[in-house]
């Protein structure tokens, strides 16, 4: 660890890569929140795969080898695929999953065809696909990070500018329409920025893992809050931290590519959030279930006591605890608890209802 921090302070390349992955994580987390809330989680996966032909065309047909040129190709190809997906969903009875699957696989296949055809090598292994498929964070340059920060800045600006519109489209499209907002424009804007985020990530984490970069921070953030602004902020933080930690781990071990490590860390955040989130988490839910079950048992005991006591003139007439044996829903502990809530009084082997306990039990049925 200390060694890594020392390395981080001294190694310029590592600084650049760390900054780049952090920026990418934050950008993806922020925009991913919108994708997750619009139920378009897998759109990212499809677009990432579908950007291959764009890259192939720019790289191999037009002969551009400049990184930004490739990104532009990927962007155009991704946007075209998004249009196709929307077209299939809106014009036919095919569902969104089929539309995504069709576009994802055929675009990717076309990209492979282009790459292998132009390189005249039927063996796809040699066509340099590896970098694109799995990403190579190590190839990040200072100018890439600059581009990334610029895009993050623009995205942040647009998100803030159209915050209200985005929010409304997310939660109530019809209402937004009736208010006279141009839903199609907002929709296109949002999708475009998601495509941009995906394209930015291709170089770092690759096609296959891009969808997780987009989804995982947002899915984790969703568990902690019900407010959109907090969710977007948290998702940005989760994404950024995953980027930094992932780079750190892969830099301090041999043979660990950065992309998969970042994804695993982001997934780890998701698991933690699923289990430990205070309002939605699985652990909390289980505890609540147990608590409710206990409460129910306690009330059953109390009701039984009430049925015994109401036949007596004095409701606080003591009864033997042994009497409760007929009814199995009590333990020492539950009696103690009833006593601590002042619903009964315990006296050696006897118990007696208090006035409060009597009233509570009497109202159990009516107060539902």
């Amino acid at each position, binding site marked *: 660890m200390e060694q890594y921090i020392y390395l981080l302070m001294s190694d310029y390349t590592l600084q650049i890569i760390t900054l780049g992955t952090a920026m990418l994580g934050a950008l993806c987390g922020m925009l991913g929140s919108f994708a*997750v809330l619009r*139920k*378009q*989680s*897998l759109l*990212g*996966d499809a677009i990432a795969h579908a950007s291959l032909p764009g890259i192939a065309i720019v790289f191999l047909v037009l002969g551009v080898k400049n990184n930004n040129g490739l990104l532009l190709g990927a962007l155009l190809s991704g946007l075209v695929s998004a249009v196709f997906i929307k*077209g299939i969903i809106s*014009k*036919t*009875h*095919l*569902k969104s*999953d*089929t539309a*995504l*699957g*069709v576009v*994802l*696989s*055929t*675009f*990717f*296949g*076309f*990209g*492979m*065809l*282009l*790459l*292998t*055809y132009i390189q*005249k090598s*039927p*063996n*796809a*292994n040699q066509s340099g*696909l*590896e970098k694109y*498929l*799995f990403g190579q964070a190590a190839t990040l340059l200072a100018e890439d990070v600059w581009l990334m920060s610029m895009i993050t800045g623009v995205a942040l600006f647009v998100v803030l500018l159209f915050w209200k519109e985005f929010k409304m489209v997310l939660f109530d499209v019809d209402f937004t329409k009736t208010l006279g907002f141009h839903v199609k424009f907002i929709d296109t804007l949002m999708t475009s920025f998601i495509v941009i985020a995906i394209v930015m990530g291709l170089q770092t984490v690759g096609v296959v*893992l891009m*969808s*997780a970069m987009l*989804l*995982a921070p947002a*899915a984790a953030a*969703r568990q902690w809050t019900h407010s959109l602004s907090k969710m977007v902020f948290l998702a940005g933080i989760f994404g950024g931290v995953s980027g930094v930690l992932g780079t750190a781990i892969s830099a301090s071990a041999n*043979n*660990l*590519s950065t*992309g*998969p*490590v970042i*994804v*695993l860390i982001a*997934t780890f955040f998701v698991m933690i959030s*699923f289990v430990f989130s205070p309002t*939605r988490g*699985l652990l909390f839910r289980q505890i609540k279930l147990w608590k409710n079950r206990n409460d129910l048992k306690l009330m059953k005991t109390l009701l039984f006591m009430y049925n015994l006591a109401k036949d007596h003139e004095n409701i606080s007439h003591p009864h033997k605890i042994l009497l409760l044996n007929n009814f199995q829903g009590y333990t020492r502990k539950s009696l103690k608890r009833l006593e601590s809530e002042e619903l009964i009084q315990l006296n050696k082997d006897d118990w007696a209802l208090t006035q409060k306990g009597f009233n509570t039990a009497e109202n159990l049925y009516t107060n539902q």
Partner: protein
Amino acid sequence: MTNAQLEIQVILVLVAVACALPGVFLVLRKMALISDAISHSILPGIVIGFFITQDLASPWLILMATLTGVLTVVLVEYIQKTGLVKEDTAIGLVFPSLFSLGVILIARNAGDVHLDLDAVLLGEVAFAPFNRWMYGGIDLGPKSLWMIGTILGVSILLLLLFYKELKIATFDTGLAASLGFAPVGIHYGLMTISSVTTVGAFDAIGAILVVAFMIVPAACVYLLTTNLKKMLVWSSLVGVFSSIVGYWVAHVLDASIAGTIATLLGLLFFVVYLFAPNKGYISQWYRTKQQKTEVAMLVFMLHLANHQEEENERNIDHLQEHINWTKQRAKKVLKLANQNNMIAINSRIINLTPKGLSFTQQAVTYISENKNSELEGIKNDFFLFRG
């Protein structure tokens, strides 16, 4: 055509049919993306299997990878059931993390595992004829041919045995459950078959393009027919056709075979998407346009019926300003109404004919009551409600 070429084509055809059959059910059950998830997340299973056997075509590897595929489905469904995230997010969370595990497993053991990631993701059927199955000195043909052949045989057998159950469970889970067909069992059976097929197909066409082989034929055919038997047969044929044609196109272009077949499938889908009768883009577009005009005509006739007393409201020259239509639209609507004998134009004043009047009244009753029971009868009377 050499022997190797023939073998490659036979393998491709078998893969295409083996993928198309479960693909139909995946598309119908709206689970197309599960195949995408499975195809990625079998990677750790393949890596561990390869560790043990050092052979991509060994049954142990297939078993391990299939188990990972089924595990993916189980995980996705578990996450969906918690309700913490939407369904598609669950898929998007599970498969990248399993895939990452696979990548890391390979990278950490690069010394021991001579497994190329590209080989898993992209496949290469051209190499299939080199890995042959020798038994006692006799050449029995390529191993992958036997493997995918067996998988296809088993899935056809299962399909024939459980056709009725699959059909009911696909279209009406509740009915299947009440008839005692155990839809959950059928569901996991289908998932297992999909996983096995993906595993069997990956070294020929690559994990990513398995999705194309599964989903695209079924999606194409679904736009053309809604008969399950026809869908199964035709999507297999679409797969076979694209495989053989794709192979030769790839041969001529000297490009990736799987990539070419996927491209061909994509083109096929695009053509069907545009031209499919009733469900294609063009026929949808035409119908929407038609319906717009018909609705406009109805609105126009309601306007006429409302203003039977006032002649100036019915003057042909004032139409535009009263109903606020463009000139072209107004002309079209007027023509349609006139052709159907709904209106009569008398010295530039438009009158409803008796037919038009009864049509309008019927439409008003229909709109105001709009009960399903009446829908059937009115469909025949009104060309408006056809289709």
